[in-house]
């Protein structure tokens, strides 16, 4: 059992801004919370490859195809940094993966929406990766060393993701009327789900206070969401797209953009598994995992036999 003295000393380290490393003492609940949020983050990166890879074969040009391939490969990399970080907490990769494929581990609800046109690929880069950057920039200062370091690595690559999307969207909004319409349609569909990425309001987020106390996070869901909105209003204006919120208005006093109520019913129904693509996503992940089983086994056997042979030769 964690003693009060241990807890106090731990809290003191956090308050001093020290990083917690894998072998350091930590409260059992800190470890559990980290495993939960780090693995959710990892699963999100991996499942996030699906909506985008949907368009690789139909990219509008060779350049865009290369860019999209590189981006999807990066998402795999991000997932791996995070799984690697989570494993330092004493869990096995297989446990984490299976908890999500066969269990009830969650991933970001944003990836349960379909990518209907190539404009969706632009908007994912701009909005979804833009929101991810806001969140991950904060997590790069997380109190758990391996998580902070994984996020630093991720942030460096994420700005390429956002910029390629924003550039492409800007091209579309200055293109033909049909392209403009496609771009606006994609923004309309992705805006609200992107705002949901930051999670429920602070008042409905039971884990937030504890995560902030332990320095895993340093800002609340609503604070992060607000700084994202303020930035996006400016960026939307610059490329001439409209954010689909009639209630959006600038508050002179606070210096922030106020926005309308997020459709939380939709959020909770997607989280519970009833989003447009939940079943499809999990099916695709199961298929990949199960069909890769023999490959993993064969590689293991090959390595074993090669080692045996080398042993005999020497």
């Amino acid at each position, binding site marked *: 059992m964690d003693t009060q003295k241990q807890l106090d000393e731990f809290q003191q380290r956090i308050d001093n801004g020290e990083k917690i490393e894998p072998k*350091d003492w930590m409260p059992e609940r800190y470890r559990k919370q980290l495993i939960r949020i780090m693995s959710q983050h990892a699963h999100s990166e991996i499942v996030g490859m699906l909506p985008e890879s949907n368009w690789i074969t139909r990219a509008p040009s060779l350049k865009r195809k290369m860019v999209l391939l590189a981006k999807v*490969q990066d998402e795999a990399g991000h997932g*791996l940094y995070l799984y690697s970080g989570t494993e330092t907490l004493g869990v096995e990769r297989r*446990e984490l993966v*299976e908890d999500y494929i066969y269990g009830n581990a969650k991933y970001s609800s944003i990836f349960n929406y379909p990518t209907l046109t190539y404009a969706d690929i632009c908007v994912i880069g701009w909005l979804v990766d833009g929101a991810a950057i806001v969140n991950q920039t904060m997590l790069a200062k997380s109190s758990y060393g391996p998580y902070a*370091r994984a996020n630093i690595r991720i942030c460096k690559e994420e700005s390429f993701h956002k910029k390629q999307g924003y550039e492409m969207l800007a091209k579309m909004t200055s293109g033909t009327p049909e392209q403009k319409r496609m771009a606006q349609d994609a923004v309309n569909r992705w805006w609200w789900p992107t705002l949901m990425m930051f999670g429920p309001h602070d008042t409905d987020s039971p884990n937030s206070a504890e995560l902030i106390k332990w320095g895993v996070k340093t800002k609340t869901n609503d604070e992060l969401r607000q700084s994202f909105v303020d930035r996006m209003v400016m960026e939307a204006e610059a490329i001439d797209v409209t954010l689909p919120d009639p209630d959006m208005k600038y508050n002179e006093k606070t210096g922030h953009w106020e926005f309308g109520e997020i459709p939380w019913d939709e959020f909770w129904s997607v989280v519970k598994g009833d989003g447009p693509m939940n079943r499809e996503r999990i099916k695709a992940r199961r298929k990949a995992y199960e069909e890769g*089983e023999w490959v993993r086994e064969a*590689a293991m056997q*090959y390595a074993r036999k090669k080692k045996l042979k080398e042993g005999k030769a020497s």
Partner: protein
Amino acid sequence: MSDDTKNTEWPLWEVFYQPKDGKPFEHAGSVHAPDAEMALQNARDTYARRNEGIALWIVPSDQIIASTPEDVGPFFDPANDKPYRHPQFYSVPRAVKKRK
């Protein structure tokens, strides 16, 4: 399900990279791989997609020997009572200092 898949988890390797010529190696993270050759390739694809390193080391994770946080005080203790190992311990005439 997990019973069938139990033995296909590939071993874990720690990855170190040298960021630039002449620089010391740094820890990057870990990868799973069945053997050293694939561990190197996986490490390259995972941690060096943008020339982050010009050289890689991989080490089976269970071969890393580490100091323990609990013993850290006594373990590094011998360093604390030898201030004469630092240049600040010594004073030299001012004139000499200035010429540098």
